């Protein structure tokens, strides 16, 4: 049965969407059947990385939560609809990768935030998706911080990935998150350090962070000007597979895969 992996961070700006997109893509390249669900309704971010705008997107998670469509209808089949010429993304042609995007329509966003949604509906949708698409992995890109929806996402996850930057605010917030995740009995917990300055000794950092949180570090992603240059225009680790950042990303994917 497909594993549910939540990608979470205490604060925004840690690179969650980009990381989710890259990890999921790596899994898809390995032949896995993978879906991503962008539950960050307030600030959706994954669609950009796959070249989707409002016009190309089709149906969204919002539509599903509003009961307008089934979850399958909201799942955009990336592998079948590679249209643009982004070289990284192009490699996903024919692979099994879906995205349930969040709407970027301002009105729709505020509507959901105002009305809220029943998490059970979301959960049902995730379970259905898992079965219907025969997924090996389902990645949930959560909203940052500890709120009801994210906590529930954690609760139904098999694996939780917490992304943090090597930054005091992230350190403190991640400590609380880790404790909460443990109190929710999340089976697997891994940390990903993003935007780490290359001057740091990564091996030392890994050891220090693992010791601090008593949780494994799946990988450390270096702060890369090349990444910034990419500006979310493509899946970096597919476009530049030999880049240090991409190699670190491949390592992270392998570590998550190793969990089973």
């Amino acid at each position: 049965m497909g594993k549910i992996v939540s990608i979470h961070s205490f604060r925004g700006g840690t690179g969650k969407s980009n990381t989710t997109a890259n990890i999921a893509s790596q899994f898809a390249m390995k032949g896995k059947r993978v879906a991503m669900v962008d539950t960050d309704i307030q600030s959706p971010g994954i669609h950009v990385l796959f070249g989707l705008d409002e016009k190309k997107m089709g149906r969204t998670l919002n539509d599903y939560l509003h009961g307008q469509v089934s979850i399958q209808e909201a799942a955009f089949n990336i592998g079948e609809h590679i249209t643009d010429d982004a070289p990284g993304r192009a490699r996903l042609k024919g692979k099994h990768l879906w995205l349930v995007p969040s709407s970027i329509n301002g009105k729709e966003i505020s509507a959901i935030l105002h009305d809220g949604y029943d998490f059970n509906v979301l959960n049902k949708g995730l379970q259905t998706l898992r079965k219907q698409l025969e997924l090996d992995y389902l990645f949930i890109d959560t909203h940052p911080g500890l709120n009801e929806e994210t906590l529930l996402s954690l609760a139904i996850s098999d694996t939780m990935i917490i992304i943090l930057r090597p930054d005091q605010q992230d350190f403190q917030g991640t400590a609380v998150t880790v404790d909460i995740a443990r109190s929710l009995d999340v089976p697997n917990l891994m940390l990903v350090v993003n935007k780490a300055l290359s001057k740091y000794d990564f091996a030392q950092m890994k050891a220090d962070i693992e010791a601090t949180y008593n949780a494994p570090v799946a990988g450390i992603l270096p702060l890369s000007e090349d990444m910034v240059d990419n500006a979310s225009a493509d899946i970096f680790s597919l476009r530049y597979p030999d880049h240090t950042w991409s190699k670190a990303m491949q390592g992270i994917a392998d570590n998550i895969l190793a969990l089973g």
Partner: protein
Amino acid sequence: MPATVDMLNKIALLTVLPDQTLAQLPERMVERHFEQGDILFRKGEPGGTMLLILSGLVAIVLDHDDGSQEILNQLGPGEALGQMSLIEPSPRTAGATAISPVTVLELSVDDFRAVTAGQPESVMEALRTVSHQMRLGYLDILKETRIFGGLPEDIISSIARKLTVEHLEAGATLFHKGDPGDSFYIIDEGALKIVTTDAAGGELTLNTVGAGDSLGEMSLIDQEPRSASVIATTPTSLLKLSRADFMEAIQAQPTIAMEALKSISGRLRFATTYIEQAIEWSKRIAEGDYSFALDQITDSQTNASRSQQANEARATELLSAFFQMVRGVQAREEDLKQQLRQLTIEIDQVKRQQEVQNLTGSEFFSDLKKQAQKLREQNTEDE
């Protein structure tokens, strides 16, 4: 037994004189005998005679204040003591003792002057030059070089007469890489470094030379520009021989060419050893094996004097200095990294516990947990 012109022609100072003049000397020379242990003269005694050894051995000695005696040189048949006295009588600069029974022929300065009275000024000038140079030890310096060392006294004397002196302050450049090579140098005092520049423009010491070493043979032989720059590391004095004079010396004595070749060959062997060692060291360091380099690094003397070190030892010494610098760079980088590498993770544990407590202790959370439990059960059932 009287002196012969041939014998006299082998004495540095006298080679300046034409044979006819020399022929006048033997009749003015007085034979003297000494027993083993006899003192021929003491240091400080007024000079004024030259002694040509016919048979036996004479030690040139220096008595020290503590009573010990240092033997500076040992002269045998055909060799002369006190040549300089014939030009400029002055107190003996050292003592002379017979080590065996000795027979000498003595020539006084007065007789010498009488015989040389009619000589042209050029000859007198030459006499003064040789004497001066002998006083300065140039002949000795030449004798100690590889190239000229084994040559007869008269050849050495003729070469010595062509030497000029150059003085350099510490840090001054003798010649630059690429300069036309037009002279050959022998180092009298001091030390110099032979340098080139590396790819980044930094100075790279290839070798060091000191008193007794020679420089510049290569340019004299192949006429290519200087292959490296030479810079004095201490105040230095060198004896310089022009290319023309060097070539003339080779014509007069072809064996000099062979000796020059041997000298260059020696440098080549050194270079090969140096390169081999440099490659070895580089490999080790590239593998991160600095301990090897550290073991080899010793305090290298930058003032390498008349060095009898084997090529390998010499190469090691130079490479030590170079890699010490490399190690220094690496150490500085490590230090820098060390300073920056400590990413401090400061968790306010109290605050952490409080926040967790706030959340998990709330009713909201316990409801959430129940809901989570239900969801999990549901999901598991549906599987």
